[in-house]
């Protein structure tokens, strides 16, 4: 039996060819990244351009379907001259405040309820039927009830946002608690953890990725709750701005408000993602579809 190993000169040739191959692979990745970004920009420019041209030549009636330049003018007017109901910043601030209050109250309540029911079989079996019923009610309808009960002020919008957020977060927290690994719980138990320590150091961290996933979705729901609440009756806010624009047949106004809301949602989404990465930094890096 003889051992076979490559000679040094063979190894040197091999190292050089590896370096070349690596360089090529890196260049290929960079080109692909640039291609993806370029195509994204192209799609944006082409679709906005076609919309604008269609509006100019009256193929798309700008009275009903607005136009990119009209929407931008509307946003500019709101920024520089303010809206019919006061400065734009105040409208954004009011809606954001309602959304945040609703989001925080709904999320905290949902997480707490999810953990309590997830850890207690009897409570879960008793309440599951009522939660199913409550969850199947179209919750936006509750907005009318809240406006009757709580008035046109902030409370009714916050209440609607809470209801929108609570069930999503609750369902995820509950599922996350239930999915906690049995071996991991047994391990903690044998290492000497009390039931409270198990909840704090095993159950909550393992439910955390479920909960965070639901926070992404539910912030959007909180925004919907706040805007719909304002739509149904309010003195200020982005929802009222939309409803006013609708009443004046101002399609540009509706689109402009929509874009502002989308930007708000994207900014908060970005903040939540940063928060998530901070909280679950123990997780392996997820497969990144954007290649960034």
């Amino acid at each position, binding site marked *: 039996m003889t051992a076979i190993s490559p000679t040094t000169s063979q190894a040197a040739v091999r190292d050089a060819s590896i370096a070349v191959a690596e360089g090529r692979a890196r260049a290929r990745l960079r080109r692909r990244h640039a291609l993806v970004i370029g195509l994204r920009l192209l799609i944006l420019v082409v679709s906005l351009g076609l919309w604008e041209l269609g509006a100019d030549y009256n193929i798309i009636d700008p009275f009903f379907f607005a136009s990119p330049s009209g929407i931008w003018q509307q946003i500019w007017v709101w920024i520089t001259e303010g809206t019919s109901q006061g400065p734009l910043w105040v409208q954004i601030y009011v809606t954001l405040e309602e959304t945040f209050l609703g989001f925080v109250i709904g999320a905290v309540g949902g997480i707490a309820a999810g953990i309590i029911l997830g850890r207690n079989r009897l409570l879960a079996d008793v309440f599951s039927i009522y939660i199913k019923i409550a969850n199947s009610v179209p919750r936006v309808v509750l907005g009318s009830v809240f406006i009757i009960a709580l008035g046109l002020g902030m409370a009714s919008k916050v209440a609607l946002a809470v209801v929108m957020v609570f069930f999503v977060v609750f369902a995820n927290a509950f599922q996350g608690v239930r999915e906690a*690994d049995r*071996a*991991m719980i*047994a*391990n*903690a*138990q*044998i*290492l*000497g*953890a*009390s039931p409270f*320590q198990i909840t704090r*150091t*095993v159950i909550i*961290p*393992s439910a*955390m990725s479920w909960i965070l996933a639901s926070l992404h979705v539910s912030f959007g729901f909180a925004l919907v709750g706040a805007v719909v609440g304002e739509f149904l009756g309010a003195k200020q806010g982005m929802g009222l701005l939309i409803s006013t624009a609708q009443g004046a047949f101002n399609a540009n106004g509706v689109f402009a408000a929509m874009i502002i809301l989308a930007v708000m949602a994207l900014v908060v989404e970005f903040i939540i993602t940063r928060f998530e990465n901070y909280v*679950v930094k*123990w*997780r*392996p890096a997820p497969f990144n579809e954007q290649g960034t």
Partner: protein
Amino acid sequence: MQLQSMAAEKLSQAALPADAAIAIDDVTLRFVTPDGHMMTAIRDFTMTVARGEFACVVGPTGCGKSTTLNLVTGLLRPTTGDVRVMGNPVTDISRDIGFVFQADALFPWRSVIDNVAAGPLYRGTPKAQAYERARDWIARVGLGRFEKHYPHQLSGGMRKRVALAQTFINQPKILLMDEPFSALDMQTRTAMQDELLGLWSEQKSSVVFVTHDLEEAVALADKVYVLTAGPGTVKSVYRIDLPRPRVMADIRYDPKFVEIAKVIWNDLREEVQLGQSRTLQTGH
């Protein structure tokens, strides 16, 4: 007796010694399945492990090997019979017990050092002291450079080392292991078996090691329990008189080892065949 000369002495289980670390006395465990059927997991099961003894449990799949461990932890209660740990009846999870799981039971959101320090922290050791001991144990299993790593950044073998440190830091008098190395590749498994024997000889704990790998059992144990196909009961017990310290990489080429493994395999084979034919019939 022919068997004695081969260093694999078949033992009879007459009297239970009073000072045994673990004494499972004529235990039967039944439970009701979710669809309302009564299942017998183990029946008339008797087993003793002396202090400092290394016992292995082998048997066909689904014969209740893991059940025996859960009886000792107190996570399962016997339907009839008696389980004693260090002379006391099992009522709650004892502080004397350590458990190494088959699956990865590390906390993925905690770094290596936080994982190892978990036991002392749960038990109320001051933080500084818990981390000092954790650092010491991480060094002992050879992971000194990986204190701040998270489990997903480690290989399977390294994660098992963390699991061993996490268990041994509580200095358990009783060490229960449920097929701990079955998911590892051959070389890593051999290294971990050596690591385990080293730690065990320092700590003098009493070990119950469940495995489906007969060679692993013979290589590690002082005493091997062969279980019947489910519902499990003890078929026979063998004393393994191979000299210690044992080196895992070499022992499997030792003629004495081969001979012992053959004898026990003859005993185990029928049960494995029975278990397999039953699995084929019932589909689970």
